[in-house]
């Protein structure tokens, strides 16, 4: 693999031609516009400056038409920004991009669409009060003489559902769907626009394995029809599984780029971080003593329409994983325990004492239960505030005297939390909106940690986060458990659930269907899926 460390726009162009090139040095001639297969995209010295930082330091690359092209890199490496430039959403500070030979107009998504580009974003762009059909056809409805042609749209919607193997009712309000289903709508919207160049920003983060498979099947179909695709991902397996070309970003520059056949998992990771990392593996923890009394006993937890009569137990210092597919009720269970489901019912015993069922988050917090929500931007953080203000938010009593906040105390105490979570102390005064996903997640964990809960509920703790930060977060959770905090983890990444849990409860269709103990032998992903699909 070539390494491109050249940062200046024009000069890096030559070096970047290696994009289509194999590892042999000096093979530059085989790439370039004159190569046999036409170029879908050609970027030339693209720079992006946000305030004082350079998110892109002169990136040049080319993408062949009809290829599936993966962009990977750690958080903040610039891959999403680059995708944004191509999508026409972000206006670069310098550089040119041409799409199928035509110059790109920046900052005009509509113009980008005219060039045949459709982007599917990581942040959902669903209109919650519109129906599923209306969302799929947003901005490009089928109409006949100015009137909406509902019938045709519904027909196309059904066809799409069939192709993607999903079951979403056309009339259901998009806002009531799960995150995974909303993601599916987003993907359907991209597919039905019949774009020549489809951009995906982490399309699979909230999808369960079967849904991923369906998406990959569609991506391959589209490729056979000549569609060019470019996608950002943190999941190296899926990158290796589906892409033709892989480009690795590091610190705003191209780190390396090459054909799929040149890469394997270790080499990708090396290119991303610049050194070898041990892959995220299960860390053995001392087993929770059998005679230990229960910290939490939740019995017959029911959330109408989501889960029914689920009972779970948790001991001090234990990490309980909840396995299951998207829509199995995992998140509802956590939300009910955190007091976010007012219609939920059940009985709760904490440390052997019966507690009233939490019907609002204040009561749950009072009982020592804190939730790290799934959607850190929408539910977890106040994006306009500084990191340290977010950290102390759930327990401002600790940093105030007679109702007035002390900046010194906020700084001191949040610094302590930052150290614990491997969060850079210099970023404590940064507005959370400007932080990378990994750092935002650390702030969110720090915020929950700050109110010292005895029971921590964690929903998708590593969604959309790079490998380095993932490891740090996992280690912090283990350290908390070692201190005696009981932790319940929900994650779509089943390997992650296995890596961290002492015990796994598998949920399926709103019920707990199996309990797998890891104290003797490690559970395999297949075991969880078997239980989740009720295969016997």
């Amino acid at each position, binding site marked *: 693999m070539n390494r491109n460390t050249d940062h200046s726009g024009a000069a890096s162009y030559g070096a970047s031609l290696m994009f289509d090139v194999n590892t042999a040095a000096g093979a530059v001639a085989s790439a370039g516009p004159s190569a046999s297969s036409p170029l879908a995209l050609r970027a030339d010295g693209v720079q992006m400056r*946000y*305030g004082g930082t350079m998110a892109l330091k002169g990136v040049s690359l080319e993408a062949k038409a009809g290829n599936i092209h993966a962009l990977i890199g750690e958080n903040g490496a610039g891959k999403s920004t680059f995708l944004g430039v191509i999508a026409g959403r972000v206006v670069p500070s310098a550089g040119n991009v041409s799409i199928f030979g035509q110059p790109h107009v920046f900052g005009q998504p509509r113009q980008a669409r005219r060039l045949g580009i459709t982007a599917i974003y990581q942040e959902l762009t669903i209109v919650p009060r519109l129906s599923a059909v209306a969302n799929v056809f947003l901005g490009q409805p089928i109409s006949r003489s100015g009137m909406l042609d509902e019938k045709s749209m519904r027909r196309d919607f059904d066809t799409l559902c069939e192709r993607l193997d999903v079951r979403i009712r056309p009339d259901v309000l998009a806002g009531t769907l799960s995150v995974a289903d909303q993601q599916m709508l987003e993907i359907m919207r991209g597919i039905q626009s019949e774009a020549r160049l489809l951009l995906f920003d982490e399309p699979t983060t909230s999808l369960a394995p079967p849904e991923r498979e369906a998406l990959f099947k569609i991506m391959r179909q589209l490729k056979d029809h000549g569609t060019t695709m470019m996608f950002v991902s943190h999941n190296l397996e899926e990158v290796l599984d589906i892409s033709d070309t892989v480009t690795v970003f590091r610190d705003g520059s191209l780190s390396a780029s090459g054909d799929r056949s040149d890469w394997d998992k270790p080499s990708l990771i090396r290119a991303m971080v610049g050194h070898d990392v041990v892959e995220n593996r299960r860390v053995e923890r001392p087993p929770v003593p059998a005679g230990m009394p229960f910290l939490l006993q939740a019995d017959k937890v029911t959330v109408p329409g989501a889960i029914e009569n689920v009972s779970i137990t948790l001991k001090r210092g234990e990490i309980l994983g909840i396995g299951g597919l998207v829509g199995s009720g995992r998140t509802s269970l956590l939300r009910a325990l*955190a007091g*976010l489901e007012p219609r939920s019912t059940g009985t709760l015993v904490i440390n052997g004492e019966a507690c009233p069922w939490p019907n*609002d*988050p*204040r009561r749950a*917090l*009072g009982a020592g239960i804190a*939730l790290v*929500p799934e959607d850190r931007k*929408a*539910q*977890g*953080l*106040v*994006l*306009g*505030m*500084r990191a340290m*203000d977010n950290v102390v*938010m*759930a*327990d*401002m*009593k600790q940093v*105030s005297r007679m*109702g*007035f*906040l002390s*900046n010194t105390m906020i700084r001191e105490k949040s610094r302590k939390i930052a150290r614990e979570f491997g969060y850079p102390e210099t970023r404590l*005064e940064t*507005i959370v*909106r400007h932080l990378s996903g990994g750092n935002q997640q650390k702030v969110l964990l720090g*915020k929950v940690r700050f*109110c010292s809960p005895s029971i921590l509920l964690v929903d998708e703790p590593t969604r959309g986060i790079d490998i380095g930060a993932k490891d740090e977060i996992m280690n912090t959770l283990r350290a908390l458990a070692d201190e005696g905090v009981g932790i319940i983890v929900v994650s779509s990444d089943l390997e992650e659930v296995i890596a961290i849990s002492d015990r796994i409860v598998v949920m399926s269709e709103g019920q707990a269907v199996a309990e797998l103990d890891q104290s003797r032998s490690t559970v395999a992903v297949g075991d969880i899926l078997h239980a989740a699909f009720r295969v016997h």
Partner: protein
Amino acid sequence: MNAQNSAINVSTTPKEMRFFSRDVMLQYGVLWAFLLLLIVSAFLYPRVFELQNIQNILSQSAPVGIVAVGMTFVIIGGGFDLSVAAIFALGAVVFANRADVFGLWGAAAAVVTVSAICGIINGLIVTRLKVNAFVATLGSGSVFGGLAYIYSNSAPQVPNDFNFGDLGTGSWFGWPISIWMLFITFAVGAAILSRSVYGRSIYALGGNEEAARLSGIPVDLYRASTYVLTAICSGVGGMILSSRLGVGQADMGGSLALDAIAIVVIGGTSLLGGEGALWRTAVGLLIIATLTNVFDSLAINTNYQLVAKGLIVIAAVALDIYARKMRT
């Protein structure tokens, strides 16, 4: 989108302290605009800086300024209050009507009680009935305004108490009492908003209600409390005006709601909630007050003043949005 910096950042890092850096220029754009206005005013109306004139400007704008303090709380909390004009009028009428019966202090207590009840009603409509704040206060404003007319029989309330005018025209230590009231409201409001747990919770509420709820902040109670604060500010504002004019009338509110919102918005506090600051509202108030003062001194017809002020509100907000865009 660094505007929040100014709102919540109490200390600034050394890098941001560079005086004429672009970020500082943009972040404090409203201050520069005010300075520019002062310079222009000095040419158009040389007496603008005389102590007498300054006191005049401030005491005239005390009522609307006090309302704007409450409005800042509501807007930062992600809400909106159109009923302030009606509560203001109700306060004026009740104060004038009760002054002879309860005495001045008793009448003042009655005003605070009545306006607090109005605020509680607004808060309940918004948090319990979940009616959109705009519609809720549009409706309740009509109700409160109607009650002011009914209570006063549509007649001017003129009390006989000789000291009725003290609040609006008297002075402490050489400065009008109304200016002291304005200063105190701003100072206490700013301390609460920027330094207290309650104030920080209001920012959190306006910035991300779900995150605030999950943090254990009693969101409904706090949201309702911002309406109560605003209502009390409005009642007190009405009291001051009726005292200055020596009469309480049900049509005293006028365009007060929009004026107060304009002051908050000109200062650079976002209508989206979660960001802004009281010093911004203070600058907004000074800008509007200075403009009125200069226009009046030049004997410009109030109709033209209305047109000019409307354009300035739009220009200020457009500039603010542009400045934010430049800074990201």
